[in-house]
Protein backbone atom coordinates (compact mmCIF):
# COMPACT_ATOMS: atom_id res chain seq x y z
CA UNK A 1 0.00 0.00 0.00
CA UNK A 2 1.45 3.33 -1.05
CA UNK A 3 2.02 5.64 1.91
CA UNK A 4 -0.01 8.84 2.07
CA UNK A 5 0.44 11.95 4.16
CA UNK A 6 -2.63 14.17 3.97
CA UNK A 7 -3.83 17.28 5.70
CA UNK A 8 -5.87 15.38 8.30
CA UNK A 9 -4.81 11.74 8.13
CA UNK A 10 -1.89 9.64 6.95
CA UNK A 11 -1.35 5.99 6.31
CA UNK A 12 1.30 3.44 5.53
CA UNK A 13 1.86 -0.28 5.61
CA UNK A 14 4.61 -2.43 7.03
CA UNK A 15 4.93 -6.16 7.67
CA UNK A 16 1.32 -6.85 6.80
CA UNK A 17 -0.10 -4.14 9.04
CA UNK A 18 -1.73 -1.00 7.69
CA UNK A 19 -1.66 1.98 10.04
CA UNK A 20 -4.06 4.89 9.65
CA UNK A 21 -3.10 7.91 11.76
CA UNK A 22 -5.48 10.77 12.50
CA UNK A 23 -3.44 13.93 12.87
CA UNK A 24 -5.67 16.97 12.68
CA UNK A 25 -5.52 19.34 15.64
CA UNK A 26 -7.09 20.16 18.00
CA UNK A 27 -8.76 16.75 18.26
CA UNK A 28 -9.36 15.19 14.84
CA UNK A 29 -12.72 16.82 14.24
CA UNK A 30 -14.22 15.08 11.21
CA UNK A 31 -15.23 17.56 8.53
CA UNK A 32 -15.26 17.57 4.74
CA UNK A 33 -11.48 17.44 4.37
CA UNK A 34 -11.15 14.44 6.69
CA UNK A 35 -14.04 12.76 4.89
CA UNK A 36 -12.37 13.29 1.50
CA UNK A 37 -9.18 11.70 2.80
CA UNK A 38 -11.01 8.84 4.53
CA UNK A 39 -12.69 8.06 1.21
CA UNK A 40 -9.27 7.93 -0.45
CA UNK A 41 -8.11 5.64 2.35
CA UNK A 42 -10.92 3.08 1.99
CA UNK A 43 -10.39 3.11 -1.79
CA UNK A 44 -6.69 2.41 -1.25
CA UNK A 45 -7.54 -0.31 1.27
CA UNK A 46 -9.34 -2.25 -1.47
CA UNK A 47 -6.02 -2.74 -3.24
CA UNK A 48 -4.35 -4.24 -0.17
CA UNK A 49 -4.10 -7.94 -0.89
CA UNK A 50 -1.50 -9.13 1.54
CA UNK A 51 -1.96 -7.24 4.81
CA UNK A 52 -3.78 -8.92 7.69
CA UNK A 53 -4.52 -6.06 10.09
CA UNK A 54 -5.37 -2.37 10.19
CA UNK A 55 -4.67 -0.10 13.14
CA UNK A 56 -6.46 3.24 13.44
CA UNK A 57 -4.93 5.67 15.92
CA UNK A 58 -4.41 9.35 16.64
CA UNK A 59 -1.17 11.30 16.93
CA UNK A 60 -2.98 14.25 18.54
CA UNK A 61 -2.43 14.51 22.32
CA UNK A 62 -6.03 15.51 23.16
CA UNK A 63 -7.41 12.21 22.01
CA UNK A 64 -8.59 9.88 19.27
CA UNK A 65 -11.28 12.20 17.90
CA UNK A 66 -13.83 14.68 19.22
CA UNK A 67 -16.22 13.65 16.43
CA UNK A 68 -17.89 15.67 13.71
CA UNK A 69 -16.53 19.12 12.99
CA UNK A 70 -19.49 21.03 14.40
CA UNK A 71 -18.07 24.43 13.53
CA UNK A 72 -17.75 23.48 9.89
CA UNK A 73 -21.20 21.86 9.94
CA UNK A 74 -22.75 25.03 11.34
CA UNK A 75 -20.96 27.50 9.07
CA UNK A 76 -21.48 25.44 5.91
CA UNK A 77 -25.12 25.02 6.76
CA UNK A 78 -25.59 28.73 7.41
CA UNK A 79 -24.00 29.59 4.08
CA UNK A 80 -26.74 27.66 2.23
CA UNK A 81 -30.37 28.63 1.65
CA UNK A 82 -32.60 26.99 4.28
CA UNK A 83 -34.15 24.59 1.75
CA UNK A 84 -30.74 23.19 0.72
CA UNK A 85 -29.31 22.52 4.17
CA UNK A 86 -30.77 19.09 4.78
CA UNK A 87 -29.68 17.86 1.35
CA UNK A 88 -26.10 18.96 2.08
CA UNK A 89 -26.12 17.25 5.46
CA UNK A 90 -27.63 14.11 3.95
CA UNK A 91 -24.86 14.02 1.34
CA UNK A 92 -22.18 14.24 4.06
CA UNK A 93 -23.88 11.59 6.22
CA UNK A 94 -24.39 9.21 3.30
CA UNK A 95 -20.71 9.53 2.38
CA UNK A 96 -19.44 8.97 5.93
CA UNK A 97 -21.75 5.95 6.27
CA UNK A 98 -20.18 4.43 3.16
CA UNK A 99 -16.72 4.91 4.65
CA UNK A 100 -17.76 3.41 7.99
CA UNK A 101 -19.51 0.46 6.33
CA UNK A 102 -16.45 -0.32 4.23
CA UNK A 103 -14.23 -0.17 7.32
CA UNK A 104 -16.71 -2.32 9.23
CA UNK A 105 -16.72 -4.96 6.48
CA UNK A 106 -13.03 -4.70 5.64
CA UNK A 107 -11.48 -8.20 5.35
CA UNK A 108 -8.54 -7.15 7.49
CA UNK A 109 -8.84 -7.41 11.27
CA UNK A 110 -9.21 -3.81 12.36
CA UNK A 111 -8.05 -2.33 15.64
CA UNK A 112 -8.83 1.14 17.02
CA UNK A 113 -6.06 2.22 19.42
CA UNK A 114 -7.67 5.08 21.30
CA UNK A 115 -6.71 7.58 23.98
CA UNK A 116 -8.24 10.70 25.49
CA UNK A 117 -11.35 12.17 23.91
CA UNK A 118 -13.20 9.54 21.86
CA UNK A 119 -16.49 11.33 21.35
CA UNK A 120 -19.37 11.29 18.89
CA UNK A 121 -18.13 10.54 15.38
CA UNK A 122 -14.73 9.57 16.79
CA UNK A 123 -16.40 6.98 19.00
CA UNK A 124 -18.35 5.82 15.95
CA UNK A 125 -15.14 5.42 13.96
CA UNK A 126 -13.73 3.24 16.74
CA UNK A 127 -16.95 1.21 16.77
CA UNK A 128 -16.53 0.40 13.08
CA UNK A 129 -13.32 -1.44 14.02
CA UNK A 130 -13.24 -5.05 15.22
CA UNK A 131 -11.29 -4.40 18.42
CA UNK A 132 -10.82 -1.35 20.60
CA UNK A 133 -7.63 -1.07 22.62
CA UNK A 134 -7.96 1.86 24.99
CA UNK A 135 -5.36 3.88 26.82
CA UNK A 136 -6.56 4.46 30.38
CA UNK A 137 -7.01 8.17 29.56
CA UNK A 138 -9.71 7.37 26.98
CA UNK A 139 -13.26 8.63 27.48
CA UNK A 140 -16.21 7.58 25.33
CA UNK A 141 -19.29 9.69 24.81
CA UNK A 142 -22.28 10.32 22.54
CA UNK A 143 -22.95 14.03 23.14
CA UNK A 144 -25.32 14.45 20.16
CA UNK A 145 -28.58 14.72 22.10
CA UNK A 146 -27.24 17.97 23.56
CA UNK A 147 -27.47 19.38 20.03
CA UNK A 148 -30.93 17.99 19.38
CA UNK A 149 -29.51 15.20 17.19
CA UNK A 150 -28.71 11.51 17.35
CA UNK A 151 -25.24 10.17 16.46
CA UNK A 152 -25.07 10.18 12.68
CA UNK A 153 -22.03 8.11 11.71
CA UNK A 154 -23.60 4.72 12.43
CA UNK A 155 -22.61 4.46 16.07
CA UNK A 156 -25.90 3.48 17.66
CA UNK A 157 -26.68 0.49 15.40
CA UNK A 158 -23.09 -0.70 15.82
CA UNK A 159 -23.06 -0.25 19.59
CA UNK A 160 -26.42 -2.02 19.81
CA UNK A 161 -25.00 -4.84 17.70
CA UNK A 162 -21.98 -5.21 19.94
CA UNK A 163 -23.37 -4.50 23.44
CA UNK A 164 -26.60 -4.66 25.43
CA UNK A 165 -29.33 -2.17 24.71
CA UNK A 166 -29.17 -0.85 28.30
CA UNK A 167 -25.59 0.31 27.77
CA UNK A 168 -26.59 2.07 24.57
CA UNK A 169 -29.48 3.81 26.32
CA UNK A 170 -27.23 4.93 29.18
CA UNK A 171 -24.70 6.52 26.85
CA UNK A 172 -27.19 7.90 24.34
CA UNK A 173 -29.88 9.23 26.66
CA UNK A 174 -27.64 10.76 29.35
CA UNK A 175 -24.87 12.02 27.05
CA UNK A 176 -22.39 11.23 29.80
CA UNK A 177 -18.85 10.15 29.07
CA UNK A 178 -17.40 6.96 30.49
CA UNK A 179 -13.79 6.08 31.12
CA UNK A 180 -11.82 3.20 29.62
CA UNK A 181 -12.20 0.95 32.66
CA UNK A 182 -15.98 1.25 32.55
CA UNK A 183 -15.87 0.70 28.79
CA UNK A 184 -13.88 -2.48 29.30
CA UNK A 185 -16.24 -3.66 32.04
CA UNK A 186 -19.24 -3.41 29.70
CA UNK A 187 -17.39 -5.22 26.89
CA UNK A 188 -16.70 -2.29 24.60
CA UNK A 189 -12.94 -2.24 25.07
CA UNK A 190 -11.02 -5.45 24.49
CA UNK A 191 -7.73 -4.40 26.12
CA UNK A 192 -6.87 -1.65 28.57
CA UNK A 193 -3.48 0.00 28.02
CA UNK A 194 -1.33 2.09 30.31
CA UNK A 195 -0.96 5.73 29.39
CA UNK A 196 0.71 6.04 25.97
CA UNK A 197 0.76 2.26 25.42
CA UNK A 198 -2.34 1.68 23.25
CA UNK A 199 -0.54 1.82 19.89
CA UNK A 200 2.21 -0.52 21.06
CA UNK A 201 -0.40 -2.99 22.32
CA UNK A 202 -2.31 -2.69 19.06
CA UNK A 203 0.87 -3.51 17.11
CA UNK A 204 1.50 -6.54 19.31
CA UNK A 205 -2.08 -7.67 18.74
CA UNK A 206 -1.72 -7.12 14.98
CA UNK A 207 1.44 -9.25 15.01
CA UNK A 208 -0.48 -12.05 16.74
CA UNK A 209 -3.29 -11.78 14.16
CA UNK A 210 -0.64 -12.11 11.45
CA UNK A 211 0.04 -15.69 12.58
CA UNK A 212 -3.39 -16.74 11.31
CA UNK A 213 -4.41 -17.49 7.76
CA UNK A 214 -5.73 -14.22 6.31
CA UNK A 215 -8.65 -15.82 4.48
CA UNK A 216 -9.73 -17.76 7.58
CA UNK A 217 -9.72 -14.56 9.66
CA UNK A 218 -11.73 -12.74 7.00
CA UNK A 219 -14.25 -15.59 6.82
CA UNK A 220 -14.58 -15.72 10.61
CA UNK A 221 -15.15 -11.96 10.70
CA UNK A 222 -17.75 -12.09 7.95
CA UNK A 223 -19.55 -14.84 9.85
CA UNK A 224 -19.60 -13.09 13.24
CA UNK A 225 -19.84 -9.40 12.33
CA UNK A 226 -22.98 -8.52 10.43
CA UNK A 227 -23.52 -4.94 9.30
CA UNK A 228 -26.88 -3.67 10.60
CA UNK A 229 -27.80 -2.09 7.26
CA UNK A 230 -31.49 -1.57 7.91
CA UNK A 231 -30.86 0.30 11.15
CA UNK A 232 -28.06 2.30 9.56
CA UNK A 233 -30.46 3.46 6.83
CA UNK A 234 -33.04 4.35 9.47
CA UNK A 235 -30.41 6.30 11.38
CA UNK A 236 -29.73 8.48 8.33
CA UNK A 237 -33.45 9.21 7.94
CA UNK A 238 -33.90 10.08 11.62
CA UNK A 239 -30.78 12.24 11.63
CA UNK A 240 -31.98 14.20 8.59
CA UNK A 241 -35.48 14.57 10.05
CA UNK A 242 -34.08 15.93 13.30
CA UNK A 243 -31.70 18.25 11.46
CA UNK A 244 -34.64 20.28 10.14
CA UNK A 245 -35.76 21.24 13.65
CA UNK A 246 -34.93 24.75 14.92
CA UNK A 247 -33.47 23.25 18.11
CA UNK A 248 -30.54 21.86 16.10
CA UNK A 249 -29.56 25.19 14.61
CA UNK A 250 -29.84 26.74 18.07
CA UNK A 251 -27.77 23.95 19.61
CA UNK A 252 -25.06 24.24 16.97
CA UNK A 253 -24.97 28.02 17.28
CA UNK A 254 -24.67 27.73 21.04
CA UNK A 255 -21.76 25.32 20.65
CA UNK A 256 -19.97 27.40 18.02
CA UNK A 257 -20.40 30.69 19.87
CA UNK A 258 -19.79 29.23 23.32
CA UNK A 259 -17.14 30.78 25.48
CA UNK A 260 -18.13 28.27 28.16
CA UNK A 261 -15.14 26.42 29.54
CA UNK A 262 -17.03 23.17 29.15
CA UNK A 263 -18.49 23.08 25.62
CA UNK A 264 -18.14 19.30 25.51
CA UNK A 265 -20.04 18.77 28.73
CA UNK A 266 -23.86 18.86 29.07
Amino acid at each position, binding site marked *: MKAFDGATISWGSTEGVVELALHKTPCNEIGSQTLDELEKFVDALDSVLTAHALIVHSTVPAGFSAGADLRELYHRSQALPANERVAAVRDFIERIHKVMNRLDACPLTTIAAVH*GVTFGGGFELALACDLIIADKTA*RFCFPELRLGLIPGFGGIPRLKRDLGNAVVRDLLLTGR*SVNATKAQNVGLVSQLAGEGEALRMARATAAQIGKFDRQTSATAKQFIKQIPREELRREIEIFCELFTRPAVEAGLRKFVESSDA*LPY*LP
Partner: protein
Amino acid sequence: MPTTPTIEQTVEQVLALASAHFKVPRAELSPDDDFFKKLGISSLQVLDLLTRVESHFGIELPDYELQGVSDFRTLAQRIQARL
Protein backbone atom coordinates in the same frame (compact mmCIF):
# COMPACT_ATOMS: atom_id res chain seq x y z
CA MET B 1 -13.23 -2.64 56.22
CA PRO B 2 -11.95 0.63 54.75
CA THR B 3 -13.50 3.76 56.18
CA THR B 4 -14.87 6.55 54.06
CA PRO B 5 -12.50 9.51 54.04
CA THR B 6 -13.68 12.79 55.50
CA ILE B 7 -14.47 15.65 53.15
CA GLU B 8 -11.23 17.33 54.24
CA GLN B 9 -9.28 14.23 53.28
CA THR B 10 -11.06 14.05 49.93
CA VAL B 11 -10.31 17.72 49.25
CA GLU B 12 -6.66 17.11 50.08
CA GLN B 13 -6.47 14.09 47.78
CA VAL B 14 -8.04 16.09 44.93
CA LEU B 15 -5.54 18.91 45.43
CA ALA B 16 -2.63 16.47 45.53
CA LEU B 17 -3.88 14.75 42.38
CA ALA B 18 -4.26 18.04 40.50
CA SER B 19 -0.89 19.25 41.69
CA ALA B 20 0.91 16.10 40.58
CA HIS B 21 -0.77 15.77 37.21
CA PHE B 22 -0.86 19.40 36.11
CA LYS B 23 2.53 20.23 37.61
CA VAL B 24 1.35 23.04 39.87
CA PRO B 25 3.01 23.16 43.31
CA ARG B 26 0.62 21.88 45.97
CA ALA B 27 1.30 24.97 48.12
CA GLU B 28 -0.19 27.16 45.39
CA LEU B 29 -3.54 25.34 45.41
CA SER B 30 -6.42 26.03 47.82
CA PRO B 31 -9.79 24.26 48.15
CA ASP B 32 -11.77 27.25 46.90
CA ASP B 33 -9.58 27.98 43.89
CA ASP B 34 -11.11 27.97 40.41
CA PHE B 35 -9.37 24.95 38.91
CA PHE B 36 -9.75 26.20 35.33
CA LYS B 37 -7.78 29.31 36.15
CA LYS B 38 -5.39 27.85 38.69
CA LEU B 39 -4.42 24.84 36.58
CA GLY B 40 -4.78 26.71 33.30
CA ILE B 41 -6.84 23.91 31.77
CA SER B 42 -9.44 23.67 29.01
CA SER B 43 -12.65 21.69 28.85
CA LEU B 44 -10.83 18.77 27.24
CA GLN B 45 -8.29 18.74 30.07
CA VAL B 46 -11.10 18.75 32.60
CA LEU B 47 -12.11 15.40 31.14
CA ASP B 48 -8.57 14.22 31.82
CA LEU B 49 -8.90 15.42 35.42
CA LEU B 50 -12.25 13.62 35.68
CA THR B 51 -10.69 10.37 34.46
CA ARG B 52 -7.91 10.64 37.02
CA VAL B 53 -10.37 11.42 39.80
CA GLU B 54 -12.51 8.40 38.86
CA SER B 55 -9.47 6.15 38.74
CA HIS B 56 -8.01 7.43 42.02
CA PHE B 57 -11.23 7.14 44.00
CA GLY B 58 -12.59 4.08 42.19
CA ILE B 59 -15.85 5.81 41.31
CA GLU B 60 -17.86 6.88 38.29
CA LEU B 61 -18.60 10.58 38.25
CA PRO B 62 -20.95 11.51 35.39
CA ASP B 63 -19.67 14.66 33.74
CA TYR B 64 -23.05 16.39 34.04
CA GLU B 65 -22.37 16.48 37.78
CA LEU B 66 -19.47 18.81 36.98
CA GLN B 67 -21.75 21.35 35.34
CA GLY B 68 -21.23 24.63 37.13
CA VAL B 69 -18.43 23.18 39.25
CA SER B 70 -15.17 25.08 39.04
CA ASP B 71 -13.59 24.83 42.51
CA PHE B 72 -11.78 21.93 44.16
CA ARG B 73 -14.01 21.86 47.26
CA THR B 74 -17.25 21.41 45.30
CA LEU B 75 -15.57 18.80 43.12
CA ALA B 76 -14.53 16.97 46.29
CA GLN B 77 -18.13 17.13 47.55
CA ARG B 78 -19.38 15.52 44.33
CA ILE B 79 -16.77 12.79 44.78
CA GLN B 80 -17.60 12.35 48.47
CA ALA B 81 -21.26 11.67 47.60
CA ARG B 82 -20.14 8.60 45.65
CA LEU B 83 -17.69 7.11 48.15
